[in-house]
């Protein structure tokens, strides 16, 4: 998962069919973005763990947790990424509840609980995500960093971007990530006495629990007689 995307070869995450059918960009080498990634690697040095460039699309850079604030400050000063787009977190654990559309009568389907991170890898469950854009050349960059599994804390970038204040408050109340150095981590949306972190995958969505799913097929079979094939034959093919 950690290999840097060699020139021209598509990273294995997206299906090989992608390059074949994508009409607009064949296997085009995106010079500007590769040059930018190379430059970032030099300035940040060891902080950069993994980078990914999608030609003509976007850059992903993953930095180590400790150098989170320093690398963002470096990017802002060195490469004039001065536009703070947004800050958020991703919880990579697949949700144990699925979409609440399983038939209660049948045994609960088994769901994979393996934590597989997305682009530019990562080994913890939670990942921070910031997007900065250069307001002159309009080149965007997504910066990721792992949030340690045990303490779920990372240092705040309020000092670098004042706008991050609200985003961090939202991430704190939704994911339970602590931000050291944040002026006031009050809840943005939820009432102050709300316990639990809603956006975590293991937080149940009650709306889907309360009501049975009307989509479960209950077509009573023929009253006896020639119903040889399995009833509710038309059930497979979930839309």
């Amino acid at each position, binding site marked *: 998962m950690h290999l840097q995307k060699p020139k021209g070869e598509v990273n294995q995450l997206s299906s090989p069919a992608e390059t074949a059918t994508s009409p607009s960009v064949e296997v085009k080498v995106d010079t500007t973005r590769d040059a930018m990634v190379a430059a970032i690697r030099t300035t940040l040095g060891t902080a950069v763990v993994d980078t990914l460039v999608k030609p003509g699309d976007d850059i992903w850079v993953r930095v180590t947790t400790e150098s989170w604030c320093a690398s963002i400050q470096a990017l802002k000063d060195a490469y004039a990424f001065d536009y703070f787009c947004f800050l958020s977190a991703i919880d990579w654990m697949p949700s144990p509840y699925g979409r609440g559309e399983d038939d209660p009568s049948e045994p609960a389907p088994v769901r994979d609980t393996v934590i597989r991170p997305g682009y530019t890898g990562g080994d913890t469950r939670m990942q921070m995500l910031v997007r900065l854009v250069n307001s002159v050349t309009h080149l965007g960059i997504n910066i990721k960093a792992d949030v340690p599994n045990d303490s779920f804390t990372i240092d705040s970038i309020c000092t670098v971007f004042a706008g991050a204040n609200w985003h961090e408050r939202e991430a704190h109340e939704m994911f339970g990530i602590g931000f050291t150095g944040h002026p006031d981590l009050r809840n943005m949306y939820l009432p102050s006495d709300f316990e639990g972190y809603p956006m975590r995958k293991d937080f149940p969505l009650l709306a889907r629990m309360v009501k049975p799913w*009307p989509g479960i097929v209950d077509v009573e079979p*023929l009253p006896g*007689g020639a119903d040889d094939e399995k009833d509710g034959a*038309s059930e497979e093919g979930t839309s």
Partner: protein
Amino acid sequence: MRTFKNGSNTVQYPHEKEAPPIRARGVIALHQDNCTSCMLCSRSCPDWCIYIEAHKELAPPRREGGKPRQVNLLDRFDIDYALCMYCGICVEVCPFDALFWSPEYEYSEPNITDMLHDKTKLSEWMETVPEAPALEVGADKKKK
């Protein structure tokens, strides 16, 4: 002052009614005998507001001497318009074209439980369904 003379263009609702355009999504109409209760619409409804119950029956064979066909007959097909958000996914996903849009919009009810339209009411809406409008000049004629 300019607006003073060109008068008003508000429509006095109780007296004159403004006809909604043909494609307006007012209410969903059900064409009963097209429906084979495959439940695709109630599966794909984001708000879970379509409730279907059906049972199997033997129907006369198409060609004489053939095996009697098994067909699902609808017992209950309700759409709860209190929950529905008129997204139109059910109308689109129905493989047997049993659901249609009709621009009817005057069906508000005093209490909310009446918003659950059962299949007879849905079939009543059928007459208000206009036929498909002609497409713009550049449109490609083949149906998707």
